[in-house]
């Protein structure tokens, strides 16, 4: 039961899936991680930091 609860979102049985475009060849797993890093990076720049005073004061 615990196993089905913790099962992967995507079936990991079988060969991996690849994104292929001209000379670019990358697994969807790696592509997803890169996309998440970009999203986290942009969020880190724009999400307000708790406890930070008004922009005008600090800038």
């Amino acid at each position, binding site marked *: 039961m615990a196993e089905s609860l913790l099962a992967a979102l995507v079936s990991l049985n079988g060969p991996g899936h690849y994104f292929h475009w001209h000379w670019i060849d990358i697994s969807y797993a790696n592509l997803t*991680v890169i996309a*998440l*890093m970009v999203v*986290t*990076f942009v*969020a*880190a*720049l724009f*999400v307000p*930091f708790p*406890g*930070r*005073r008004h922009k005008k004061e*600090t800038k």
Partner: protein
Amino acid sequence: MSSTEIDRQWTTRLRHRVAHRLPPEKMLPDTQPAYVASWIYVFGVTTLSAFAVVVLSGFILALKGPQWWHVSGIGHFVNSLHLWSVEIFFFAMVIHLWGKYFMAAWRGGRSLTWVTGVVTFLVSIATAFTGYVSQTNFDSQWISTQAKDGINSTGAGSFFNVLNFGQMLMWHIVLLPLAAVVLTGLHVLMVRAKGVVPPFEEKEEAR
């Protein structure tokens, strides 16, 4: 002993240098400049925290051995803890380095901070690679046989043989982690000595 003799001792000179470069209030500061209140500054410490979990879970794996981490439930758990903390470590490190890149955080005599970061990144990749090769399963067998031709073609195979399990394990659990810990230590000490780099607009007043 005369006082000039005492001043010339290496212990005295080293103490003066350390006290000058890293006084306690710089080493363990209680406040940071206002511009540090941004999420982008959190990723250095996230990397550091993930690294601590990597090292601690690695100690437990070393203590119990492969039969344990491949077979028992707790073994699987600690093995997964080790893998996933490595994933977070690299994830946070890449965002950290993107942030520092766009801040040009090597300004104001901080080039060695950047350079130790770059070398730590490369050492971490080598550590992760030797870790994949040290799993003792079909995955590690596959990875090492796939990697050997590429690495041998560079000539490194003469002293770094990916098919030599004992050698790969030693690199993974002794040499590379030691290098990563020392480099990370230097990196963080340099940040403390120099203070966090001011943003572009505030460069003039703050330096």
